[in-house]
């Protein structure tokens, strides 16, 4: 089966600019997660969707970050405006539900200058 797809793989922007990341989960997976992984650290959950509803967004900086999963399949994560400290790898993961085992995409490496 095809894995989790993410694009773009790399993005360089200047601070105060906007950026969007896209994720296509494994077909049939109801749960979708976005993580932020800062260099040298483990992934940190930003937001979790169950179908097209938000389950947990407690660690999402809502003043600048937003995410949506309109049709319960693909998802986009947006940062507006970006700050230097947003430089990180943004990982998308999906799960079929009823399990914590998650399948990760390759990530998008964001550099904010």
């Amino acid at each position: 089966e095809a894995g989790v797809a993410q694009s773009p793989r790399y993005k360089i922007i200047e601070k105060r600019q906007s950026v969007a990341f896209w994720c296509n989960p494994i077909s049939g997976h109801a749960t979708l997660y976005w993580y932020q992984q800062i260099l040298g650290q483990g992934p940190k959950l930003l937001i979790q969707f169950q179908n097209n509803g938000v389950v947990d967004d407690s660690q999402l900086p809502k003043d600048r970050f937003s995410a949506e999963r309109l049709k319960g399949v693909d998802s986009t994560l947006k940062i507006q405006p970006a700050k230097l400290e947003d430089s990180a790898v943004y990982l998308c993961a999906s799960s079929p539900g009823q399990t914590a085992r998650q399948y990760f995409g390759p990530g998008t490496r964001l550099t904010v200058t």
Partner: protein
Amino acid sequence: GESVGLHLPTLSVQEGDNSIINCAYSNSASDYFIWYKQESGKGPQFIIDIRSNMDKRQGQRVTVLLNKTVKHLSLQIAATQPGDSAVYFCADDSGGSNYKLTFGKGTLLTVNP
């Protein structure tokens, strides 16, 4: 803070040796644990998982041991190969219905030929 942490940030072994990567967790309610391998530039890849009603689980060349008394988890890799070089993360699901993982910082395993 994080409920999962690692004892050693780096581990260097010789090819063919066995590797042991350790992890401590603090949440006694955690009922599911998982190990991921992350190679440079890639997303985390599932290695093995274990539920809290077990104390040992084996896969191909890997074994996970769970000691609930001292809240300790370990990953053993037999006959370590250069392809095993990566960062290894443990993560736990603290229970509940959200199936949310909390990751530790990771251990960098380097296999010397």
